[in-house]
């Protein structure tokens, strides 16, 4: 049992006498209750009346409730507005007010509320505020009447306003006058609170906690991260020495750095907490900061599922949800969900719509032969549920709607909840209650507005997991007020942090704020507060260490001045904040593995690839193995607009359609310019119509018009180039051929085959991207596509459906550069056997190939055949033979090329 965290001495008598004790926060009130209980229990009392100790605001609320329960008319004029409700009203007022900031109502609603709160707490009537030429205050004043009206219309008042009813209630005899109230741990008390307390209590006694005799020390750490680590190490050592000691660690910016702090303390105090089979466990300490509810997995999934029903959302979000365990039955649906992700990715939409998601799921379920189809049914039902909802309705109705929606989707999923998740679920329910309460505003938002509000509420709601009471307390500065420890560490005490920098409220005149000593409005006041804080903390334990980082980033820091005289404390910084990782690192003796095993390609596995298979094998045998036999392909990421592949296909398709009607160049030349354009337009339309089946946006409207115009320009340019060529006849388009290369079947589609004037054939491949000549030479050609065409046509004419091709000799192979760029090069880029036969084509000899086709083909058959055999043997050497490897960076994690040097060095070492 940890010892109590408060020193009862100053209030013991008061508690015993049943007098009222008020604290600035619940934590201290709870601490007193604890300590008091333990003291009584130690003295043998087994049950006792609860001591009258409350957090101040909590006590105010109780008094207010008592008056209302007593049906005291002034207390029944309205309910106290929650922060969310009040902020919503402010936002409404601000948005409706004709002013420059109306475009940002949310940003200013919070400010307006906090300004109102400050004024009322400082006992100023906002209506009588003197703006004094201050723009912010002027605005506040301008908003005020409308806001008051809105509050009144909803029968709402503020907490501060409710306080004024209390003295009246007492006068009416409905509240008992307190003989004495003891205030413990308050740094400042807003004037209004002071006034009300004096009205309600005969004596107001402000207590300063009595400091322990202590000799605090000062520790300087290299940087903020080291400071956390050092504090964690210190706390661990303290607890090792005596597990019952009350240890406090204070971080002034606990909320901002909560994640790192919690992790580092866990790493040191519960090493191994991250190992996969350990499950979620409460940390072995209490940490006073929480996490926004919206950031926790369960509520996050809920919000995201709701958002999907609101309209298109980024693809990444869809995919994340597909892998999320918190809806439906994720474990059973792994394959369906994965398939759905691929379906969705294949759409190439940056932000798929709800319908896309639904279809992807339906198709995935159909494809996996899953007759149940429960997942798509859920999503379908949810979308119907959404459709049935009215466009606008009240918050309460939307809250119900949201719950139902989540129920339909099977949130929070079939995996059993652990205690942490169960708490999230409870918080979520309470969040929905708070959301329902917004109904008091009388607004009827749309679903999308309601959802935004729900998200905001979830972001503002702090979740703190319930953790067992622990001897180690990690606190912010405010939470530490009035507490006592056996040993205390106070971090972050640099002169950049203390005294707090000034940040006066932007909606209130500065002079006013300074005059009234409002928070962070005046330098001297902040300095005095900081000094008091240091004094208080220095007396909060017999052993106190103040610490500060020597630098933050590139800025050197000093300790807050009053601490500089303290004796220095040197503290070890735990070497790494990953103790387990550090212990393991280099501990094992690695063994060498030779990547030599070559799993041959069995017939049943036989891959039917196109020319890219051989291109990959030529470039890096391992990559080819990974892609073609292991399925190592990158998941497509959507690009804006049409993808490169889609646009390439459009060009191919349009050209095919274009030449379908035209037998030869003559026919093209015979067309008048207008007729040519018309012919082209028809071909483009045909191609676009086909793509529009997957791409609904291409059915009409601007996206189609733009793409059509661009194709028109590109292809008109291309056809113009075609007219400049020597005469030709188009004998085949998009010709499928198959080639057997040393037992490896290769499928090819030749974009076009032309017959030249000499009766021989030119094989053409359309290229819309950058092309390089010469990638077709060598034992491992960078670009084996054209040679494969040549082999296919020359080697197996029987495969051709068009009889005319049989036996036709080859004249050349070429890439057709269907693109407009600044390069002066012509239409074709390729090889032929005779110089100058085809413009743009060099001779075989110029590329260092045998000078005639039969010999060149034989060499290719040999070289490419060797590659095919390599593949079939399973050769998977890791090497960069051609530049094509540079375009396969997605395989680096797999082929481990970046490790090359390191492996070499390591092998030399061992």
């Amino acid at each position, binding site marked *: 049992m940890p010892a109590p965290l408060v020193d009862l001495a100053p209030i013991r008598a008061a508690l015993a006498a049943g007098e009222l004790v008020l604290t600035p926060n619940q934590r201290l009130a709870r601490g007193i209750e604890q300590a008091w209980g333990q003291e009584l229990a130690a003295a043998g009392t087994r049950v006792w009346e609860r001591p009258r100790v409350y957090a101040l605001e909590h006590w105010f609320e109780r008094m207010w409730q008592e008056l209302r329960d007593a049906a005291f008319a002034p207390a029944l004029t309205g309910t106290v507005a929650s922060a969310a409700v009040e902020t919503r009203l402010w936002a409404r007022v601000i948005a409706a007010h004709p002013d420059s900031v109306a475009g940002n109502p949310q940003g200013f609603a919070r400010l307006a509320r906090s300004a109102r709160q400050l004024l009322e707490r400082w006992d100023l009537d906002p209506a009588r505020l003197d703006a004094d030429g201050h723009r912010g205050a002027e605005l506040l004043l301008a908003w005020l009447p409308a806001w008051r009206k809105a509050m009144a219309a909803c029968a709402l008042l503020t907490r501060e306003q409710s306080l004024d009813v209390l003295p009246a209630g007492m006068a009416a005899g409905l509240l008992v006058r307190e003989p004495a109230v003891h205030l413990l741990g308050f740094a400042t008390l807003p004037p209004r609170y002071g006034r009300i307390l004096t009205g309600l209590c005969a004596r107001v006694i402000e207590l300063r906690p009595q400091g322990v005799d202590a000799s605090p020390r000062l520790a300087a750490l290299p940087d903020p991260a080291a400071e956390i680590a050092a504090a964690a190490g210190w706390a661990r050592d303290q607890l090792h020495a005596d597990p019952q000691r009350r240890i406090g660690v204070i971080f002034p910016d606990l909320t901002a750095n909560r994640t790192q702090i919690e992790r580092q303390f866990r790493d040191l105090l519960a090493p191994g907490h991250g190992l996969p089979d350990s499950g979620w466990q409460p940390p072995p300490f209490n940490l006073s900061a929480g996490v926004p509810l919206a950031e926790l997995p369960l509520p996050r999934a809920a919000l995201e599922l709701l958002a999907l029903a609101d309209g298109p959302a980024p693809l990444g979000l869809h995919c994340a949800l597909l892998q999320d365990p918190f809806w439906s039955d994720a474990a059973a649906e792994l394959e369906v969900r994965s398939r759905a992700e691929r379906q969705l990715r294949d759409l190439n939409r940056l932000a798929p719509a709800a319908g896309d998601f639904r279809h992807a799921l339906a198709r995935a379920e159909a494809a996996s032969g899953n007759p149940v189809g429960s997942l798509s049914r859920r999503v379908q039902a949810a979308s119907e549920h959404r459709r049935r909802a009215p466009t606008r309705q009240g918050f309460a109705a939307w809250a119900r709607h949201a719950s139902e929606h989540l129920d339909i989707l099977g949130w929070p999923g079939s995996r059993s909840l652990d205690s942490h998740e169960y708490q999230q679920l409870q918080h979520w329910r309470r969040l929905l209650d708070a959301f329902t309460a917004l109904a008091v505003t009388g607004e009827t938002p749309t679903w999308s507005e309601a959802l935004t509000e729900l998200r905001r509420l979830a972001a503002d709601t702090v979740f703190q997991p319930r953790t067992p009471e622990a001897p180690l307390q990690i606190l912010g500065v405010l939470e530490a007020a009035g507490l006592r420890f056996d040993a205390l560490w106070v971090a972050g005490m640099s002169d950049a942090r203390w005294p707090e920098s000034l940040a006066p409220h932007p909606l209130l005149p500065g002079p006013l704020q300074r005059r009234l000593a409002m928070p962070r409005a005046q330098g001297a006041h902040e300095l005095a507060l900081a000094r008091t804080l240091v004094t208080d903390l220095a007396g909060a334990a017999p052993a106190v260490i103040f610490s500060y980082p020597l630098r933050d980033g590139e800025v050197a820091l000093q300790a807050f001045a009053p601490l500089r005289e303290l004796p220095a404390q040197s503290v070890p910084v735990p070497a790494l904040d990953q103790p387990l990782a550090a212990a393991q690192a280099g501990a094992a003796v690695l063994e060498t593995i030779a990547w030599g095993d070559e799993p041959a390609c069995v017939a049943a596995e036989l891959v039917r690839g196109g020319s890219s298979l051989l291109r990959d094998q030529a470039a890096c045998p391992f990559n080819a193995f990974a892609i073609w036999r292991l399925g190592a*392909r990158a998941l497509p990421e959507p690009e804006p607009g049409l993808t490169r592949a889609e646009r390439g296909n459009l060009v191919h398709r349009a050209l095919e359609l274009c030449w379908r009607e035209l037998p030869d160049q003559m026919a093209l030349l015979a067309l008048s310019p207008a007729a040519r354009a018309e012919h082209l337009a028809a071909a483009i339309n045909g191609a676009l119509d086909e793509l529009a089946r997957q791409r609904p946006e291409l059915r009409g409207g601007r996206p189609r018009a733009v793409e059509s115009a661009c194709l028109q320009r590109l292809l008109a340019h291309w056809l113009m180039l075609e007219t400049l060529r020597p005469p030709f006849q188009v004998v085949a388009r998009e010709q499928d051929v198959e080639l057997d290369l040393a037992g490896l079947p290769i499928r090819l589609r030749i974009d076009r085959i032309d017959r030249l004037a000499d009766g021989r054939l030119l094989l053409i491949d359309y290229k819309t991207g950058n092309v390089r000549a010469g990638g077709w030479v060598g034992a491992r050609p960078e670009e084996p596509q054209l040679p494969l065409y040549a082999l296919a046509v020359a080697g197996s004419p029987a495969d051709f459906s068009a009889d005319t091709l049989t036996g036709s000799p080859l004249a050349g192979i070429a890439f057709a550069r269907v693109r407009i760029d600044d390069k002066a090069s012509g239409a074709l880029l390729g090889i032929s056997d005779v110089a100058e036969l085809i413009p743009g084509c060099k001779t075989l000899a110029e590329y260092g190939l045998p000078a005639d086709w039969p010999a060149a083909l034989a060499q290719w058959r040999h070289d490419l055949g060797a590659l095919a055999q390599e593949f079939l043997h399973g050769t998977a050497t890791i090497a960069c033979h051609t530049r094509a490897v540079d375009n396969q960076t997605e395989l680096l994690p797999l082929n481990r090329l970046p490790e090359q040097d390191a492996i070499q060095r390591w092998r030399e070492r061992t």
Partner: protein
Amino acid sequence: MTPDRDARRQALDPQRSFAVAAPAGSGKTGLLTQRMLRLLADCAQPEEVLCMTFTRKAAGEMRRRILGALELAQQPQPPDDAFERDNWELARAVTARDAAAGWDLASAPNRLQIHTIDAFCALLARQLAVEAGLGSGLAPSENAEPLLRAAVRDLVAELEHPGATGDALAVLLTHLDNNQSQLEDLLIRLLGKREQWLGHVLASRDARPHLEAALAELVSDTLEQLHAELAPMAAELAELVRYAARNLARTAPDDPLVQFTAAAGLPSPAMPEQWRAILGLFLTGNGTFRKRIDKRQGFPTARESVDPELAGTYKERWIALCEQFAATPGLLELCNDVVALPPVAYPDAQWQVLAALTQLLPELAARLDLVFQRAGECDFTAIALAALRALGDEDQPTDLALRLDYRLRHILVDECQDTSSLQFALLRRLTAGWQDGDGRTLFLVGDGMQSLYGFRNANVGLFLDSRRHPLGDIHLTPLDLSANFRSQEQLILWFNRIFATAFPATEDPARGAVPYAPAGAVRPPLPGAAVSADVLPSTASATEEAEIVATRVQAALAEPGEVAILVRGRNHLREILPALYRRGLSWHAADIDSLAGSMPVIDLLSLTRALLCPTDRIAWLAVLRVPWCGLGHADLLALAGGAGADLRAPLLPRLAAWAENPALSAAGRAILARVAPVLLAAWAERWRKPLRIWIEGTWIALGGPAALLDPGNLRLCRQYFDLLESAADIARSDWPTFTARVQSGYAAPTATPETRLHIMTIHKAKGLEFATVIIPALDRKGRADDRELLRWRERVTAAGDSHLLIAPPQRNGEARDPLYTWLAREDSFASRLEDARTLYVGCTRAARRLHLVFREPRKDNPPDNTLLARIWPALAPELAQPGPGFEVIRHEASAGDAAVEVDGPTDAEAETAPAPPLSHGARLPPDWRPALAPPAPGPAPPAPGAGADDDTDAPLARLAGILFHRAVRQLLREGPERWDARRRARQEPLWQGELAAAGATAAEVETAIARIRRGLENLLTDAHGRWLLADHPEGGAEWEMGYLDDNGQTRTAIVDRTFVIEETRWIIDYKLAEPAAGEPQTQFVARQRKSYAEQLARYAALFARRDARPVCTALYFPLLPHLEIL
């Protein structure tokens, strides 16, 4: 005597404003400190002095110095050192003031207003929230690009919707060949620099006249300049033009010069075409002065001429004039500028595209604001723009004194050469209304020679201009420091020799051209050569160069002091780092090693991705192949491929079934027996822990750290995990952005304090000092920037007006627009100028020695976009004949290594040498076992307390129950007899209000109130109810009782109703519950008993602790009504 003494003394005059040129090593921070001290001594509040710096580091340094001086002032005696003594005196005055005014700066140093410009803008925007329009909760972020992208995508989505926006988008997209990615990138780039155009495109509804006026002004400004330069020669020039015109009228009547046949003088500065024609007489097509002239230009030979006598004379007059031209400094450049001038109007076709763009831009900016608001995050530009807005316009400035609660009286700006025009605009507004001598001053410190941030919109011209023209109404006295306190004399002399020609001869603020200002040495010369140049043959390989650099480093480390290798681009280090490594050297490298280039980090990315996305097969295959697993090819195939396998399906199911897979080898089975359970367990517990902890824990369990080839890489892994922690959400829902963030990360420096070798880019080295500096790869080309799609330029006139010059995006396959060409020309000027400054900054980091390493150019001159080219004119002669303190080492071509092509590639291109195949890997032995276990489960979290099942109740039913309880308590307080129907009715507004506030509809309120009403009625009329309410001894309602639970925690129990009858303690809870529809009462009561038995038993036990009386517990259901005794 201290050098620069006069200037330094003047600079402390608190009445005057200054613009100080403070070159490298001149001690500017010291000067700023002194002036700030001087000003503080006169202030009413320390906040009256504002010092703005460029980096946080510089702000920290200033602060440290001021505080140091104040501490120094505590000493009673002045220090001996002259500079320190000055500080001491100045600081004494401040401490006196501090004491008198009670500032206590030592305790509250935050009152010193020393900020980076960004931080100051944020402060203004926050405090002037209304004027700035930002409101609360908008935080600037370093990673704002995704937000810009979101805004752009928002806009581009309009393509599919009717309206003018979509039309404009269609125009642009058609122009860009429907390349949406390109359009996105272009718009993002524009958004990132929106401060340059926003004002212009918002200025008028039709942007064309506005933009064309800027063009016209550019043209007339340039021509006026030419006019002015030529004024002394105007008459002669006019005469020669007339002569040529007359000749041409005969031979080439179409020549544009012909129009001057009868011209009285030179054309006005508004006629660019005519001027171009005239300049044709003196300029060649290559932009040099003509050496010859003939009849084609209108100067025939005597034989060709109709007027042979004149021919000779005029040719001589032409030659004389040419000489005069050549002797006029800067005239050639000016003439070329005139020739290059763009037309003053946009061709209609071009304008159409630009019109579409200018129409989209304001809308884009507006959407960006919305995106920022939604995200609660923005970029730094948004903050700066907001700050500017907050300050009002120059004519009607916001009254800052009123808003900031102090009067800003002095502003000091450090590194002023790197401020952007936006930041300058901020300065103008901050000082609007200031007058010379009114006690308010501006103090700018900068060094034009060190301006390096052109790519971040720094505009050095503004600083240069502030030294010539007043800023607003304030005249800044230019001061020049020249002493160099850093480098030894030999170095200084070398700098002065070499850099004088590297910099332009004259200053040109519009272009940011800064001439070199010679430095004066303070430090005595050191023996030995101060500067060395290692000249390699032009064919030398990068590896050879690296060896030389490494040798230099070793030699330098033998001397005292820090050593730095400074490079322009990180890729210059590719061969150098291994060479250093081979020599066993360690170094301190800031932002050099890319995080994502190291295999351990790549492996962690794979692991993260695999667990986030089972669909990603590459990630899963990688996870099985990394050293912590290390499956061979055959085993991988057995697991992932094989006959009939679906090569797109997730691997997870097959991994789960590994034991049944007959194709696996024995080693494979051994490995999977260890690895598969870990991965499966990790997958099963996904999202139970924060992402980082989850992945890190899995990695440790897999043996990730044990399998590191180099345990030192653990540091990289930790850096990766930190990144993962801070970007967990992005990793989950936007993997490409996350990986991009990892890509842009650099490994943090490792070095120990003993490490004396530093490696960094020259940009990073700014402001630092090293004993020895080594700059390799001077001959490498910089990035080629000739492919920019869109070019624009902000032109700030002497009056401080900003003009936007923008060319429409260029279309593939179409001729370059002349305006585009002009902008490209200006950009290339700017980068050449910046190259020279970059090299200057690099060289002047050296205190003792400087080593340059480069390959000899292949032709006479190095290519223009190398650093070497900048100093070549002065360096080339010294290579042959080294000046004092300079040493040249020529290296011979190494034999084996003939003619490797290294000169060619630019920084952007990679030099790929074919690497040997990677035949081996490393892995954990298959039988490796981790020596760790998860921690023993600690105490369970406290059970959700009793009544937690209330949670599942409908919220309104719960609330009705609470209201009922409160009513009963009040009823008991007042006495049941007084709670007649009228009294009860008075309670209803309360219920009404509370229920409505919880969001109940009118109907729901009615139902709930009816229940409460009925409950109360029953309670008051039912026999049991009346018994319950009767005034029994020792009674209490809502009795709060403290006790200690089994864990020793104090708890409080609240008992609804309790009393004592006949020595029996009764404990009764009431429940405003009813049987569900159709549920028999007995079943309902049994259900309730079950739920509450435990709680009541606990209460009973508590009372049993109090006294020995028997306890009886009961539940009371007022709605039935029914009393159930337990």
